[in-house]
């Protein structure tokens, strides 16, 4: 039976909260399993450091991901090399799996324009802050790929709140009509800032919305990285090479929780209670996979310690790299607005430099 043939409200599961196997374990070798574990640890550690950088005034507002590593890493790991991710603003962990250097993510939230530029060899769209606006992009990208006969798959990430936006609906509808190789990966973390999932829609599940567009939808335990891997792999395979009678797109509703605040500017204690947080913390994807991997003899204390050390060093290096990047030159304001800078903008840039020459940077930054 394929993962697509199931009730909408019956999430795919592989490991339970304790790491006990409750479903078919996907076909992953040891290195791949350890890779998922390591990448989740990387995302978590990055997240903790990023929040603390913000607290220390070394970074601007930052959207934390803790709790959502299983969904991000499990899904991104299931992509082929030539596939693309089209993220929102919270999928730092998925981006690292795809090869985005963590210093890029730091730079972005430190307010540097260059942080928004994925390296040429990383198949990722830039972060999209306006909710759901990236959904049609993922359809268009996949559509282009299909028209060119490449059938690279585009995995689009967005939240539960995003499913209320017109762009979500319009994008999904186009994906169905044009049968594009798109995977709609909904990180349902239960909340859109302070608005609970039940307030977004009366639909019993988000997955069932796929029905209206004519393609498959399913739920998965988003804090079970192996289950997420499994469903994403199936969705990607179907997007590339659909069986008779099935459309390429899939809507995956990955049920999960953000342990922390919506962003560092948010105070979640105003709208949700500790009991709820505690309940979800028990589902933490990291100890869950760790327990399973230990029970399989794939991880032990030494390997876990080595991974911890590796991850800590990577993040420390990324922070050092990001913080050593000087404030961009004002010229960067004007660069990239057009292929060629129009003369009017040259003139505006000259205004900046004239003032700088006469009064220094203090003319802009204050004393």
């Amino acid at each position: 039976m394929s993962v697509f043939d199931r009730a909408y409200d019956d999430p795919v599961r592989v490991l339970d909260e304790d790491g006990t196997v409750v479903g078919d374990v996907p076909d992953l070798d040891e290195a791949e399993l350890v890779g998922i574990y390591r990448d989740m640890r990387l995302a978590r550690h990055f997240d903790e450091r990023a929040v603390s950088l913000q607290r220390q005034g070394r970074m601007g507002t930052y959207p934390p991901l803790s709790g959502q590593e299983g969904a991000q890493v499990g899904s991104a790991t299931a992509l082929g090399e030539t596939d693309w991710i089209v993220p929102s603003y919270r999928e730092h962990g998925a981006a690292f799996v795809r090869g985005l250097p963590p210093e890029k993510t730091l730079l972005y939230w430190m307010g540097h324009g260059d942080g928004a530029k994925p390296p040429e060899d990383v198949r990722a769209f830039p972060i999209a802050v306006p909710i759901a606006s990236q959904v049609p992009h993922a359809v268009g990208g996949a559509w282009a790929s299909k028209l060119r006969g490449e059938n690279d798959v585009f995995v689009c990430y967005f939240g539960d709140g995003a499913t209320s936006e017109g762009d979500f609906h319009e994008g999904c509808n186009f994906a169905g009509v044009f049968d594009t190789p798109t995977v709609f990966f909904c990180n349902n973390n239960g909340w859109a800032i302070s608005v609970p999932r039940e307030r977004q829609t009366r639909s019993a599940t988000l997955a069932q919305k796929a029905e209206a567009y004519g393609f498959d939808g399913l739920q998965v335990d988003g804090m079970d990285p192996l289950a997420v891997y499994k469903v994403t792999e199936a969705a990607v395979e179907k997007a590339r090479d659909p069986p008779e009678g099935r459309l390429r797109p899939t809507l995956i509703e990955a049920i999960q929780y953000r342990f922390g605040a919506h962003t560092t500017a948010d105070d979640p204690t105003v709208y949700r209670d500790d009991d709820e947080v505690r309940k979800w913390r028990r589902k933490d994807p990291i100890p869950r996979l760790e327990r399973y991997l230990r029970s399989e003899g794939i991880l032990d204390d030494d390997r876990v310690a080595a991974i911890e050390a590796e991850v800590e060093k990577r993040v420390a290096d990324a922070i050092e790299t990001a913080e050593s990047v000087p404030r961009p030159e004002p010229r960067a304001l004007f660069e990239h607005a057009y292929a060629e800078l129009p003369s009017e903008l040259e003139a505006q840039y000259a205004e900046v430099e004239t003032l700088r020459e006469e009064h220094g940077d203090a003319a802009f930054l204050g004393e």
Partner: protein
Amino acid sequence: MSDTQNLTLVQAVRDGLSTELREDEDVVVMGQDVGRNGGVFRATEGLYDEFGGDRVVDTPLAESAIVGCAVGMAAMGMRPVPEIQFSGFMYPGYDQIVSHMARFRARSRGRFTLPMTLRAPYGGGIRAPEHHSESKEAFYAHEAGLKVVTPSTPYDTKGLLAASIRDPDPVIFLEPKLIYRAFREEVPEEPYTVPIGEAATRREGDDVAVFTYGAMTRPTLEAAETLAEDGIECEVLDLRTISPLDREAIVDAFERTGRAAVVHEAPRTAGIAAEITAILQEEALLYQEAPIERITGFDVPYPLYALEDYYLPSAKRIEEGIREVAGFSP
């Protein structure tokens, strides 16, 4: 003398909403996170508890429906006050704003009117993430049928908000979030209005008329004080309403000085400064003694925050711009 409270600008928003909710049963506040959370800037704090979830409504995340439903409610005579969380997220609702909110009255030849007030925090300078710092008031000023209001003090905020909510026509109420908490002012507890369409003179001077609004009012006044030390006296006019502009006050200040600068953080091309310049050309050409200086954001996408101080007009940039105007001789 009635009782007053010492409020910040964002507290004046809250107080203004609360007062109007109390005054008029038809007032409804709606938007993302405005209810239980009290708004991401706390602009609606406590209102949900006081007025209940039917009048202070947490909506799903959909700007088009927020604006569009407010249009429908307003057409039925209610006075909805939808909030868009940041002005950068107006655009999913833009079709509703332009195609309906602005022209329902005209399209229905007055059969339907829309007494609604669309609030949004706008502007830069708070180290916010991408899309959170833009100033796009010119979009709305360009749209016939809308009024566009940008307060710069707590007192004006409460009064202009009340005037907007009570206005028979739709108002875009843009709140300068940079100065949400920058200072406090005595604000009457009782209801009052500040008229839409009237500018306020924040400083008197005979040499240069400087037109500004919103968060730029403060650095402009700072620049004016510095210039006064050098004997250049600025008349600083806080427009308060972007549409309709107070043409009379603008022209009057210009006729008395013969020189003008306009300061806004929005981009220069097709901005409010261009409109003011055109008004002065039309109505006061023969008074003009120097080119009118536009001291504005640049015509580039608003940068991530590491460079925003170079984008936004600083007190120094404003000062130097005004010096240019003051020092011009043909």
